[in-house]
Each structure stands twice: as C-alpha cells, then as structure tokens.
C-alpha cells in the first residue's frame, strides 16, 4: 500500500499539484493497480534479455542536417505558444 507521503513525492516528481483528498484517492487506486501487476513476479525471467525494440529496428540514423520548414509552419508553431513576446516563447525566470 502506497502511503500518502509517497503519493505526494510521486506527484512532486511528476510535476502535478495534488490536494490532500486526491493524495488519499491516488493511494488507493495506485495500490490496487500495483497489486494487480504483482502477478509478474510469477513469470520466470531468469536469463531473459529485456525487449529493446519489438520489431528489431536498431540504430536508425539520419544526416545531421537542418531541414527548413515554411514560414507558415513556423508561424503556426509560434502561435501555439501560451505566452509570447514578438516571436519568442515567453517563460518565467528559471533562477
């Protein structure tokens, strides 16, 4: 059973603000789900290599080269900024 304090720590890591009440609710719900996935301990995985990519693709590379997008696309991306100043994405001070 995950305690409320653990839930708060997870929420902190996940960058989600939660209330006391929500912490209690998550504690039950997450514990239920974790109880269910405990099943996996029955599976014998001795010597089994974990999956990296399901169809076996590896090291897909591309040329290190700038691909230009149209001004229209750029404007559309800029228009999606929640806050902007001129053509810049405006954010709060980091420090």
């Amino acid at each position, binding site marked *: 059973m995950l305690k409320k304090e*653990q839930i708060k720590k*997870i929420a902190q890591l996940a960058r989600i603000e939660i209330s006391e009440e929500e912490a209690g609710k998550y504690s039950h719900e997450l514990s239920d*789900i*974790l109880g*269910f996935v405990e*099943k996996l301990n029955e599976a014998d995985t001795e010597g*089994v290599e974990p999956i990296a990519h399901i169809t076996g693709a590896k090291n897909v590379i*591309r040329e290190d080269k700038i691909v230009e*997008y149209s001004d229209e696309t750029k404007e559309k991306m800029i228009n*999606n900024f929640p806050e902007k100043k001129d053509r810049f994405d405006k954010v709060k001070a980091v420090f």
Partner: protein
Amino acid sequence: MIRDLHKKIINQEITSEKLTEEYFATIEEKDPEIKAYLSFNREFALAKAAAVDKKIKNGEKVDLLAGIPCGIKDNICIEGLVTTAASKILENYVAPYDATVISKLKECDSVFLGKTNLDEFAMGASTENSAYQTTKNPHDISRVPGGTSGGSTAAVAADECVWALGSDTGGSIRQPSSFCGTVGLKPTYGMISRYGLIAMASSFDQIGPVTKTVEDAAIVLSRIAGKDRKDSTSMPTAEKNYEDLLGGANIGNLKIGVPKEFFATDGLDKRVKEKIKQAIEKYEKLGAKIVGISLPNFDHALATYYIIMPCEVSSNMARFDGIRFGQSVGAESEKTGSDYTLWDIYFKTRAKYLGREVKRRIMLGTYALSAGYYDQYYLKAQKVRALIRKEFEEAFKKVDVILGPTSPTPAFRIGEKTENPLEMYLADIYTVTANIAGIPAISVPCGTIEAGGKSLPVGMQLMGKWFDEETILNAAYIFENS
C-alpha cells in the same frame, strides 16, 4: 463499400460533393445524440470533394479513396485544424503540420469530414474519459462505444462517415470495433508512421483503419503503410495492394490456432464465448484446420502492459507543461494578476488541464520508473514482454493466424466501470497481447447478442505474424463473405 462508392463517383452517378453533403446531413441528424465528432471540417471537405469531381469531369484517373468521406481520430494532426486529443490541455491547439498518414491520404484526395472523439490522450476503454463528451453506442445509446477510438467506430457504425482512422495502443481500434460492429485493424508495429500521432505509449501505438468491411480496411492499409524518415521506428514494408490480394487464398491451407488460455478467463461472457465457438465451427466447415495451442504467459500480458504503458505515458506527457503549446495557467496569470513561478506553471497547468485517468497513469509510470523501482517493474515487464514475443514466435511456427474474442464482453453501460479503473483495464485483456508482441490483429463482427431488446455486436479477433497483414485480412475476408 469504398469500391462501390468509387465506381459511382467515377461513373458520375453521384458527385463527391453530393456524397459529402449527404454524410453531413446524416451527421446533423444523428450526431447530436451519438456525439461521435469533436469538430467538423465542412468547408475544407466540400472544397476537396468539388476538386475530385472536377478531376473526374476532366477524365483524370483518381484513387479509390478519392472523394470518399472519412473521419479522423482527434489525436492525429491535420494542419490548420484544432487537434485536442480530447484533452482540455490542447483545447486551442492548432496543428502546425500534417501527420504522415494525413499527407498520404491527402495525396489520395480523401475527404476529411471532421475529428472524432476519444478517451483523453487515448487512455481508456470506453471513450468516457473524453474531456468534452461521452460518445454513445449507435446499437444501444445507453451503452459505451468502447474505446479509445469510440468516436471513429461509432461514426462508422452510424453511417456518419464511410470509414475512419483510429489508433491502437492496447486495443483502442479493435475493442470499440467489437462493440460497434465495425472492422478494426491494428497493423504490425512499424507498419505505419506515427509522425503526427499524439504519442501515448510509443512502443505500442499504431494507427489503423476502422471500416464497414474487410476489403475497405485493406484499401486504407495499402495507402497509409510504409517507412517514413520522420518516424525512426517505422519499417521498410513491401508495397502491396492488399485489396487485390483478397479472396485468393486457399482456406484449406489455413491453420488457425486457438489458445486454450483465451477460454479459461473468468471475465469471459458466456454469450461471447458461444459466438467465438460458432466462428471456429464456421472456419472448420469452410475447410480451415483448427489447431489447439497454448500461450502460457497470456495471463501476464495485461500486467506487463499496465507497467510499460504508464512508464511511456509518464515520459510522453512531460511535454504538456504549459510552456510551448496548449493551455497554461501562465497565460491566465496576467489576467488574474497571480504571480506564478516557473514551478507553479508546471504544477498548476498539469493539475488543472489534465484529466484523472491521464494523471493516474503519469503517477503510476513515474513511480515505476523512480529510483529503486526500475528493476522491479519496468525491467521485469520488458523481460516478460520478451517471453510473450517468444511464445508468439513459437505459435506462428505451427499456425498462420490465432483466433479468439476481441473483448470479453459486449458493450457495457455508460457509467458502469468509471469508478473502478482496474475493472476498465480488464476490457483490454484479449487485445493488449498484439501490442505487446507488435503483431497485426483485426477485429471482425461475428454475430450479435440480444440484450434488453437491442442487438449488441460481438467481434472476433485474428492475430497474425509480423508484417503478414495479408493472411489475417484474407482469413477475415473469407469469414465475412461466407
């Protein structure tokens, strides 16, 4: 269905414009109740239809999908249109580019009627997790259409489009197809570019068609498949016109595997079980060879999925932080005069604009990936995933396809499972294995169940070998047309 409409369009028995108008008329009549669509694209759709009509008048050759009205799940980006993924956090998000599947469909002159509803960010099994509306099952409006592509399957079932695109991470095309009586195909992982599909769990997500017939699914698949440099997990595929390969297979050579574990599940509805048994008998009569097989780790599939998926969700959802796109409490703070720090913007934006199930999965994934738990959960699950893939490799040495139910039950009632997330997760029990192993799988209607004066559709699932969509499409086609 697509082929017939195509013939009518090219023979000028009907114009694409008229056809598109007819579909919008059906939408106007039915969608206020069904609520399959989140937004419409009327102007663009009619302009496209008119352009197709013009091409035909000029004697130009057009594609099978040209001028055919379709719906697009609202987690797939169409340039210039709002793409919400049914989340409040993307309420005003206008996609700046087309998903690769959309570029391909535009080349075919597809007519996009609108964007269909889904569970928020494709997390759910009933479309009830949409932040905007609950879609109703057209066969019984007191029931869910399934999910997460419930808007797409309800739209196809209610004739609010000819076909639709969905996405499938753990069953999100197949399970709602089973509930709505449509054909739903989840292609092999890597078959179709995921570029422009809003990511949920990247190692499972795959786009696929929702259609009325198996042939229609084949037609759509042929046009959206292929390697894309914008999705490094997409794979080079043999260019095939799947629709031309149907009906040619000799069913006498078809070996159908039936895993005993599929029928030992507690939650399997007796009436569904009966329909699947009848489907097996039908194949047997048609001359296919039925082979009893075993997938011992079937029992672990759902648990594997519910570890790996939330881990991937927690990392994919990190981009919704109120900084680069989507809703942000920062944008409001100027109006309200609140003095938020950067930290506040992250925490409050995510708290306010993400839904309950999304947050639950982010929390679960964050926990499973946090220091000290990685080996116990994520790594263990990836090892079991390897075991499950191995089991399928072994099974496909003996059989060509694997048959079973798509979902353990027919469509359940709206509200029935919303308070119990774990119970909702069990709706994915038969579908997740295909995503875990990366194999293709299709759900095909195999009968109906009478309940409360309504006929509820039941779907049967056929799973196939990696990149062997041809065999499952053929097996499904024979079943559908016999």
